[in-house]
């Protein structure tokens, strides 16, 4: 880990402290009680953190039960567009959130609850010797990137444009997990994924910070759905995610706080 | 180049132990009831089943033995299977040419030879016909041509006429007889039909329970059966007994008077039409007269066969006139009579 990661961690902590004092609290402000089932559609990259947040929320609000549907943000947006019954949508990209707000399924203004940035990920020991973004242009190295159609791929594209690097990928994967599978099995020398994914992937992979990452930060918006079957609890869950406690869990997983 | 075989195969509780010698040009029929081991013997000779022990040799070459086993595809054999097993996706010509091709004959020659064989079995116009479009008799002839086309040293026929209806059977049987007469190799015919065996074979081997119970030329076997099965096949009343002068004490009870005096264990046979039936005890010349009761009556083409219980049991063929006369019904008590001169006696 480089100096940058320390810097990021410190700044994240500062942001956390700053927001915490002014943010809304986790308790419901409405007169109706927070109880019953709440169904959350959340981006696949939130699987670990939201599962944890769900448990915490249930503990803080006895009588509630949080159910998740994790999946690709675009697939979830599509399901919601087709009228899937859900209370909350947490997307990995504003574009997918916009898809849903465009259909008037969400009337609230979505709020950004986390930010994620890209990181270079290499197999344990970095056998390909990848240390900077420019190494991705080396055709001799096996490189995996997310496909442009999915958020991490779109973000990657932006980063490469900013860095004026033309990558030479061997594969364009359909999601982050697929990229990580290939990295952890050593099939590729390097890949570009989110910082949180590097963290979640554990010991099999190593993360390499790079300077341009700060320029392509990805916002994660969340909103309660207009037709939420359990609107009160839905809002309570959104508030909980945005609370200090929520942010702490997210930043522990590697997310930046907005 | 005589074929010598000592076929020993053990499978579960069944065991086959059959010595077999077939001279070149000889047709041997293996005759026996179902389950006697006929098919096992044929499969062993064909190389489809290794012997448990024993041997098969033809002239100088060993096909199966202590530490030798020539698989089917290496043996110079031809087999006609009971249901022919013609290859459905090949034409009649291709079926006949198959063995030649498999043994390395060039395509063109193989087809020409196959066509000649189809001609020999009288199927000139059927070269391109698929087996499913052939009649039973035609399929049998293709199967025979296929088996003979490779010029085998041993021809194995597994119930070659069993799948045919009665009318075709007669003709195909005589044709088969002609082809067998022309064939210079060894032939083994497996059948349960005594008529096929009698007509086609030079020698019969009767197989029961995996053992040869009688061997000999058809006429001898027909005249002097040695087991109930053979006697039944050839349609004779058959008894075992011990002779003392002109009297034979039968193993199953009763005595029979015979024309010439002998001593010791003997077989006695006489045909069912030698038996006459009487309501009253007859006097006069017949020397063997004993009381019987009617067990069953079977109507055959020209005669009526009556199965009678007594000492001994006996089969009698009577004319329709006699039947009308006696008004037979099962359970009726009658007298059976057989002239001593009608009996045939031979040592057991």
């Amino acid at each position, binding site marked *: 880990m480089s100096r940058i990661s320390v810097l990021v961690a410190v700044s994240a902590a500062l942001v956390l402290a700053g927001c915490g004092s002014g943010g809304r609290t986790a308790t419901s402000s409405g007169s109706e009680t927070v109880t019953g089932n709440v169904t959350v559609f959340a981006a696949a990259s939130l699987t670990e953190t939201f599962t944890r947040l769900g448990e915490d929320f249930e503990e803080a609000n006895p009588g509630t039960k949080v159910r998740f549907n994790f999946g690709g943000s675009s697939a979830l947006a599509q399901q919601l567009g087709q009228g899937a019954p859900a209370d909350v949508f947490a997307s990995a990209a504003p574009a997918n959130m916009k898809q849903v707000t465009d259909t008037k399924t969400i009337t609230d203004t979505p709020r950004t609850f986390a930010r994620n940035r890209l990181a270079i990920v290499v197999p344990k020991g970095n056998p390909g010797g990848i240390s900077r973004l420019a190494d991705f242009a080396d055709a001799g190295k096996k490189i995996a990137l997310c496909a442009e159609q999915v958020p991490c791929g779109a973000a990657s594209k932006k980063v490469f444009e900013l860095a004026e690097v033309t990558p030479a990928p061997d594969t364009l994967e359909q999601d982050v997990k697929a990229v990580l599978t290939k990295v952890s*099995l*050593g099939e590729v020398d390097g890949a570009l994924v989110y910082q949180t994914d590097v963290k979640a992937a554990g010991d099999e992979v190593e993360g390499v910070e790079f300077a341009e990452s700060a320029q392509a930060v990805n916002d994660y918006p969340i909103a309660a759905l207009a037709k939420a079957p359990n609107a009160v609890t839905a809002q309570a869950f959104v508030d909980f995610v945005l609370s200090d406690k929520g942010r702490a869990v997210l930043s522990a997983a590697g997310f930046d706080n907005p | 180049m005589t074929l010598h075989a000592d076929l020993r195969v053990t499978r579960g509780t069944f065991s086959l132990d059959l010595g077999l010698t077939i001279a070149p040009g000889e047709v041997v029929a293996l005759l026996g009831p179902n389950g006697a081991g006929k098919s096992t013997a044929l499969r062993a000779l064909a190389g489809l089943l290794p012997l448990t022990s024993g041997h098969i040799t033809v002239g100088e070459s060993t096909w199966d033995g202590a530490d030798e086993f020539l698989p089917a595809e290496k043996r110079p054999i031809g087999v006609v299977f009971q249901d022919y097993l013609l290859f459905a996706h090949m034409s009649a010509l291709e079926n006949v040419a198959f*063995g030649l091709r498999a043994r390395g004959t060039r395509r063109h020659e193989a087809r020409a030879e196959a066509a000649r064989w189809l001609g020999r079995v009288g199927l000139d116009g059927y070269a391109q016909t698929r087996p499913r479009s052939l009649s039973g008799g035609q399929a049998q002839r293709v199967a025979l041509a296929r088996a003979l086309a490779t010029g085998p040293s041993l021809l194995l026929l597994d119930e070659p006429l069993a799948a045919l209806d009665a009318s075709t059977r007669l003709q195909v049987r005589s044709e088969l007889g002609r082809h067998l007469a022309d064939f210079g190799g060894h032939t083994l015919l497996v059948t349960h039909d005594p008529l096929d065996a009698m007509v086609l074979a030079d020698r019969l081997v009767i197989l029961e329970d995996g053992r040869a119970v009688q061997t000999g030329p058809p006429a001898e076997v027909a005249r002097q059966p040695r087991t109930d099965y053979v006697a039944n096949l050839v349609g004779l009343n058959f008894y075992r007994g011990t002779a003392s002068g002109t009297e034979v004490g039968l193993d199953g009870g009763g005595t029979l008077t015979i024309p010439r005096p002998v001593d010791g264990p003997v077989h006695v046979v006489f045909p069912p039409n030698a038996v006459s039936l009487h309501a009253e005890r007859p006097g006069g010349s017949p020397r063997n007269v004993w009381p019987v009761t009617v067990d069953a009556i079977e109507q055959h083409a020209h005669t009526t066969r009556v199965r009678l219980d007594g000492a001994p049991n006996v089969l009698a063929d009577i004319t329709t006139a006699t039947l009308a006369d006696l008004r037979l019904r099962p359970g009726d008590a009658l007298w059976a009579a057989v002239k001593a001169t009608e009996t045939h006696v031979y040592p057991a």
Partner: protein
Amino acid sequence: MTRNRVRGRLPVVLVLPAVIGLAFLLVPLVGLLVKTPWTSLSTSLSAEVGEALRLSLICASLATVLCLFLGIPLAWLLARSGLPGRGFLRALVTVPLVLPPVVGGVALLLVLGRRGLIGEHLDAWFGISLPFTTAGVVVAEAFVAMPFLVISVEGALRAADPRYEEAAATLGASRWLTFRRVTLPSVLPGVVAGAVLCWARALGEFGATITFAGNFPGETTTMPLAVYLALETDPDAAIVLSVVLLLVSVGVLAGLRDRWISGPT
């Protein structure tokens, strides 16, 4: 007429579920066709789509050939040999059917990947690396599709009368010749059915392919991958692509049917 009516009367017990079954299979298809934005068909059919379609057809066909080469002998082994533990082997052969394809892809990576059990040596000795290559697509598709062929051919072999093989042996045919000229032709309908299933499965293969061979246009991006990725951004285009894949495959199968499986005989 009366006779016709009597003949034509089919038991409701069979017809009703049959019709429901047919609807169950076809209605989603109809839904797809109804939703297809036909007007955008021409714009969706870019060069990339053509490339993906071509790659799909080539890879599925190669995978089918590979399956035929390996699958028929395997089916023969399962059906005809006296191999001990055949029942267990038969069950194992169906594993790729049960395995989620993505897991199958990971399994292939573990064996044939750059650091895989075998792949490591392939890479070190011959410089062959299957992941991210068109050959890798073929391998992944064959892995997933082979059970269809094996099961179909094995069933046909088990139903075939082994005495014909004995007849061939008595005519002097070696086991190989017997297999080629007697056994195989007799189970040809089973082989064709298996190959069609195999091809269709390979054509639609997604999970194992993207996991093992990755996704790169012109090399490993087959139609299902293109469809999946199109779904992320442009669902309409995805529907059009699926319909194109569907029409092409139905067209190919119908064409084959006319040529190879000529009507009732």
